[in-house]
């Protein structure tokens, strides 16, 4: 049975598999290597991918796009005409089910075992939601993998001894930058950041504005006033942007009101027009490097991921910042899926007692710090981290705290998520009062033990230090995530659902 890697993207998704010495992309049933992450409900029947995107303008109210941005949030991503609500996990499950079905058609065998990619910044709720989406789709999610880690595997980082790597990922609609340390075959995220509203689309928009102005300067109309005019302008500008990756200049040609307008654009002009956008990515790179506590001389390699990194100004900027050439060579649109396929092959082989064709080990780590609220030496409540972010899973840690008055009969126990000591930047996941036995002295030791198991479930237990008596246990059931029963119900409901 085939085991595939799935790059579940915000706008496009892709699948890949390892069948030979290197991973390969699997085309979907329409013959495309990328599948739009779009679902349209046509008379109640879900339609996914290429054809859904083509139908979106006809059924805008029944079209769900960018559902990845809603993963891990409560509430519905779509409500149909009968009032039936679809959670983000269910919509995402429809995309995953279709991707797996297309992969099955390509491979000639059923695909059930998958690895799904997630952004490095995804917190545990969003990771759990992604895993749940896979389960609802009837798939066996062997594991999740961070997108930059997958890209790193595609670039062969797992074959290196060790090093610190920067992944610059500029896609169609989002920008992410991640710094990770690779030790042997282990990938640890040191810092990650991004701009969720910056991508190739914004570069197109600036070029469109420039060309529209030049057309008016030539005595032409405001071409963006009509939908048709705007559509033509966008198509021409997108193509011009592509041409400028390999040519120093091009001409954008637009027909309007019976006349043809020609606007020459040089690469230098385009780069000047969009310099502010590129500068935003530069600021983010600086911030992430600061958060990771590294300088450029500590970065061993720089990987470019995402179709928009094809613009020469991106590699030039990275080269100027770092003083070295970034790595290129892997199709930036496909690197994440290809890396996920390698990891899927490893996990699939391990599950079946076989040897992977391209073995790789990726340690799963906690994405955010977990802790509790305690008073500091100045008697101010602050976040006290017990399991730091990027701890390898499974992990179990403990920390001692002390009561603040003799004969204290209770403690407020909060389970927090966040890296900051300042409570304004921390999320309280669970809050409960724990009773203490009578007669405790001042500064009686209270031991908090936290564990994060292999399935990402957080357990916490509080003990009295002197006797070891348990004061209470907390298991985290995230309110924003579905329970096991709900996942099972949705999985059953989707089992016989026809997806076009």
């Amino acid at each position: 049975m085939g085991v595939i890697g799935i790059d579940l993207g915000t706008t496009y998704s892709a699948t890949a598999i390892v069948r030979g010495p290197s991973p390969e992309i699997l085309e979907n049933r329409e013959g495309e290597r990328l599948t739009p992450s779009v679902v349209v409900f046509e008379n109640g029947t879900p339609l996914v991918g290429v054809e859904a995107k083509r139908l979106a303008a006809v059924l805008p109210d029944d079209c769900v796009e960018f559902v990845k941005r809603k993963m891990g949030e409560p509430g519905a991503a779509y409500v149909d005409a009968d009032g039936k609500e679809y959670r983000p996990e269910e919509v995402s499950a429809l995309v995953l089910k279709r991707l797996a079905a297309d992969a099955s058609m390509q491979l000639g065998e059923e695909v059930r075992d998958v690895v799904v990619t997630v952004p490095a910044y995804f917190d545990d709720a969003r990771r759990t939601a992604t895993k749940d989406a896979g389960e609802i789709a009837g798939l066996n999610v062997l594991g999740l993998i961070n997108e930059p880690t997958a890209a790193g595997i595609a670039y062969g980082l797992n074959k290196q001894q060790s090093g610190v790597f920067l992944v610059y990922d500029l896609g169609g609609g989002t920008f992410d930058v991640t710094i990770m340390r690779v030790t042997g075959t282990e990938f640890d995220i040191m810092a990650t950041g991004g701009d969720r509203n910056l991508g190739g689309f914004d570069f197109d928009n600036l070029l469109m504005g420039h060309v529209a102005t030049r057309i008016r300067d030539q005595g032409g109309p405001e071409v963006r006033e009509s939908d048709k005019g705007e559509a033509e302008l966008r198509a021409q500008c997108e193509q011009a942007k592509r041409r400028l990756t390999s040519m120093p200049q091009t001409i954008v040609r637009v027909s309007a009101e019976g006349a043809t307008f020609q606007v020459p654009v040089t690469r230098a002009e385009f780069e000047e027009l969009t310099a502010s956008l590129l500068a935003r990515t530069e600021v983010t790179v600086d911030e992430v490097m600061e958060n990771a506590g590294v300088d450029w001389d500590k970065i061993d390699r720089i990987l470019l991921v995402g179709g928009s990194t094809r613009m020469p100004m991106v590699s030039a900027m990275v080269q100027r910042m770092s003083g070295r050439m970034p790595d290129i060579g892997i199709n930036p649109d496909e690197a994440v899926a290809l890396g996920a396929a390698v990891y899927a092959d490893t996990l699939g082989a391990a599950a079946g007692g076989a040897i992977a064709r391209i073995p790789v080990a990726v340690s799963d780590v906690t994405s955010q710090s977990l802790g509790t609220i305690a008073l500091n030496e100045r008697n101010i409540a602050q976040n006290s981290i017990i399991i730091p972010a990027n701890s390898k899973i499974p992990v179990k840690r403990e920390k001692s705290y002390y009561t603040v008055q003799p004969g204290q009969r209770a403690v407020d126990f909060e389970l927090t998520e966040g890296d900051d000591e300042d409570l304004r930047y921390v999320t309280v996941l669970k809050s409960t009062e724990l009773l203490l036995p009578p007669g405790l002295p001042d500064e009686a030791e209270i031991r908090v033990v936290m564990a994060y198991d292999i399935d990402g479930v957080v357990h916490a237990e509080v003990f009295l230090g002197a006797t070891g008596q348990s004061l209470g246990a907390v298991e985290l059931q995230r309110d924003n995530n579905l329970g096991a029963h709900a996942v099972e119900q949705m999985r059953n409901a989707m089992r016989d659902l026809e997806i076009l």
Partner: protein
Amino acid sequence: MSEELSEKLDVLTDLFKRRLSDDLDKRKLLEEQARRIQQAEGALFRDLQLPLVLGVAAVIDRIDRHEGEEREFALAIRDELLELLAVNGIREVPTDTGFDRATHEAAAARAEEGSEPGTVLEVWNRGYARHGWVFRPARVVVAL
């Protein structure tokens, strides 16, 4: 004698089964090779020819919108380009069949009196396919 015949029959049956199995294996191998050749040919088209074809399609789009001087001349060039694409195995997607999501992309939609829902009201851009692969859907306006 019947034992000898039976033995011979067994040998022949065994030989037949093995030949049949070999044939099936060979057919599978051939099918797999044909799939790979088709895939490689498709990849070559995608990498080498598609950018050029899309460029030609963009020129045809502009001629379709051309309403100025020398229209006859422009249309003659357009038809020549369409013929050139057809000779190279690239077929234009039909748009007189009503909206078909397999070959059309709805660029816009509007209600229009006298038009059945799903009718193609306008074609903004022609669509093209090669060996059944719609690499550029026709962009159309659809009646609601």
